[in-house]
């Protein structure tokens, strides 16, 4: 068929056919035209791809179903919070990094802990060997927390703490630390990740099995609703699910399924949904597939609003809103030609902003090699500042709303998430689906599929399977942790155990043991134990003794 372009007046349907014919005949590049998640993509989207009513599917910013954003003004009132995740070495070193970031215009703190802390071991435990201060800061006691927050006005900053299994204990240290600074817990603002379900599924830093862990989470929700009302009690996280290899749709589906499980548990514990749901927040990955990521953020808002209002009967609009933090995708970064990571991170950060994030962490270029240097962190922060101050993208709310492509993707992701919700339901809910290894297997399947696509060259990674160069080691400076940190932590703990009132500490641990056997609020006991200078490991040991250990299902 030849295409007659000379006709100037053609009906719309003819024009579409003409284009299609021309498209079909043309030579195409030899790559797979799929999303990063492997979903097929049309070459063109149009009105026929976006059925549905504008009002009910999108609404207006700040109103149900929040597809376009949770605030009526979005970034015209306030930019997103620039929150760089930081933590390494000792509490003192991380305190210095916090002050460095605040001095360069960062507006909130975000704490990374080391593995012993994340697993509920003190720095001097046998399992902590070689790990102290490596991937985050070592915090074993209230005394360490006081050093971490030293000279930082806790009533003024908001602090995010990425910790899960021992999250209620770390929150207790934070509350007690505030009290020692003379700050009323009612004034404390921040977030504790406290999302144990995704730990079993993807991130793998747990303390005790699911049921007692979920009980502690409802204890945190109940305690904070009354005493720390500005605190976000769970940051329901897709980030780790995605980083473990999931697709965008799986990240969306598993995260929201976990969120709904927390809502069910809160209600089952006798809490009013509108008492705790407004304090649930979310945390997503922003990966390289620009439009798919933007659609994912929009779909998350719409799904959650519908579920909370229609399934869980929440009446307070704040319960319906997905407020979320975003981190750019660590897995998208390459060890090869590491400076290119600055560019990847900038695209991912832009997607998060166009998707309406409330706060953002941008990764540093050197993170596939080591913890970031100050220079690399500053470039990452500046990347956000350039988006905010120079590109003018923050002036218009949901600027891609109405794009046929983005709306079609948003609808597709919502439908895929619904299919996963039904499958999880069929398996008896999120906890059985996780204990059976179903969610882990789904994630693993996607990870393998992506790796295979990279190895056969159908997914391209610059510097890895295309445009590769012979490289003689990293061309950038690396940040290394001094092994002295581990020795100093041992000393600090020994001194603490000698200095404290031993009888008082023992009493506080006994009271935790009793509370494990009853339905008393455990967070309340943890705060008392923090003040009695009980250590993280001592408290966690009581929990492990009372509740047992989590056993990882075999999926391989």
């Amino acid at each position, binding site marked *: 068929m030849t295409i007659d372009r000379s006709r100037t007046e053609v009906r719309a349907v003819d024009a579409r056919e003409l284009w299609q014919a021309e498209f079909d005949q043309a030579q195409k590049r030899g790559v797979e035209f799929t999303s990063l998640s492997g979903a097929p993509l049309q070459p063109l989207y149009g009105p026929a791809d976006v059925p549905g009513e504008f009002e009910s599917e999108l609404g207006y910013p700040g109103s149900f179903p929040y597809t376009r954003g949770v605030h009526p003004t979005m970034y015209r009132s306030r930019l997103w919070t620039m929150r760089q995740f930081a933590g390494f070495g000792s509490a003192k070193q991380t305190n210095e990094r916090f002050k460095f970031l605040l001095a360069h215009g960062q507006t909130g703190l975000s704490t990374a802990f080391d593995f012993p802390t994340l697993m509920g071991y003190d720095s001097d435990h046998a399992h*902590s*060997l070689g790990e102290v201060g*490596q991937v985050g800061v070592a915090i074993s006691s209230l005394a360490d927390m006081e050093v971490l927050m030293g000279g930082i006005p806790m009533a003024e900053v908001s602090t995010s703490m990425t910790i899960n299994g021992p999250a209620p204990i770390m929150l207790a240290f934070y509350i007690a630390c505030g009290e020692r600074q003379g700050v009323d817990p009612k004034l404390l603002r921040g977030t504790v990740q406290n999302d144990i379900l995704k730990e079993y599924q993807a991130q*793998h830093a747990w303390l005790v099995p699911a049921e007692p862990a979920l009980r502690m989470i409802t204890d945190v929700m109940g305690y904070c609703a009354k005493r720390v009302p500005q605190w976000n009690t769970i940051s329901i996280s897709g980030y780790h699910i995605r980083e473990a290899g999931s697709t965008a749709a799986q990240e969306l589906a598993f995260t929201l399924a976990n969120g709904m499980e927390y809502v069910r548990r809160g209600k089952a514990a006798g809490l009013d949904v509108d008492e705790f749901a407004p304090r649930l927040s979310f945390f997503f990955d922003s990966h390289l597939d620009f439009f798919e990521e933007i659609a994912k953020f929009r779909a998350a808002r719409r799904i959650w609003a519908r579920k909370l209002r229609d399934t869980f009967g929440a009446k307070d609009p704040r319960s319906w809103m997905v407020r979320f933090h975003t981190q750019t995708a660590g897995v998208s970064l390459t060890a090869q030609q590491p400076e290119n990571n600055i560019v990847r991170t900038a695209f991912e950060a832009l997607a998060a902003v166009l998707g309406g994030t409330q706060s953002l962490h941008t990764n540093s270029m050197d993170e*596939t090699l080591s913890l970031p240097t100050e220079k690399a962190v500053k470039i990452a922060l500046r990347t956000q500042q350039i988006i905010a101050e120079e590109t003018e993208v923050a002036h218009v709310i949901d600027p891609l709303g109405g794009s046929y492509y983005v709306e079609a993707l948003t609808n597709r992701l919502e439908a895929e998430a619904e299919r996963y919700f039904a499958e999880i339901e069929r398996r008896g809910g999120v906890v059985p689906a996780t204990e059976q290894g179903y969610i882990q297997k789904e994630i693993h399947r996607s990870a393998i599929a992506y790796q295979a696509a990279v190895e056969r060259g159908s997914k391209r990674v610059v*510097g890895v399977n295309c445009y590769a160069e012979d490289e003689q080691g990293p061309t950038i400076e690396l940040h290394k942790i001094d092994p002295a940190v581990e020795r100093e932590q041992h000393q600090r703990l020994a001194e603490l155990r000698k200095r404290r009132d031993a009888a008082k500490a023992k009493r506080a641990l006994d009271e935790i043991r009793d509370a494990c056997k009853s339905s008393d609020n455990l967070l309340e006991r943890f705060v008392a134990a923090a003040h009695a200078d009980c250590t993280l490991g001592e408290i966690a040991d009581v929990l492990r003794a009372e509740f047992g250990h989590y056993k990882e299902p075999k999926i391989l």
Partner: protein
Amino acid sequence: MPMTQRKIRVLVAKPGLDGHDRGAKTVASALRDHGMEVIYTGLHQAPEAIAEIAAQEDVDVVGLSILSGAHMALFPRVRAELAKRGMGHVLLTGGGIIPQDDMAALEAQGYTKLFGPGTPTEAIAKWITAAMEERLKNQGAQ
């Protein structure tokens, strides 16, 4: 019995507290696809436990995956625990987030080759196969 009759047996292990297992599981699956018998330890393994499993399963290769920065403390301990159990002969390898000068130090200690991020699984499988063939040849020459 000539060793070629037997499939290469590999233990993929996660020492320490780090929970990042995407790489370990991806490599384990790929080695299986290349016809090896692969045992995966699961997460959070102490060096003693890794050596114990290696001995019980009588593996030819131990591959450690670590992204926590604790490699300089844990890798030498795994090696020592293997030697204690008469498993000093196994082919030791591994990968993860390991700075290059640390890689060189560990390779000098007997970790024949360590792989960094972005390595194709194909390259790892080929390297193991070639290293095992090399060993077999040397054994035959003795």
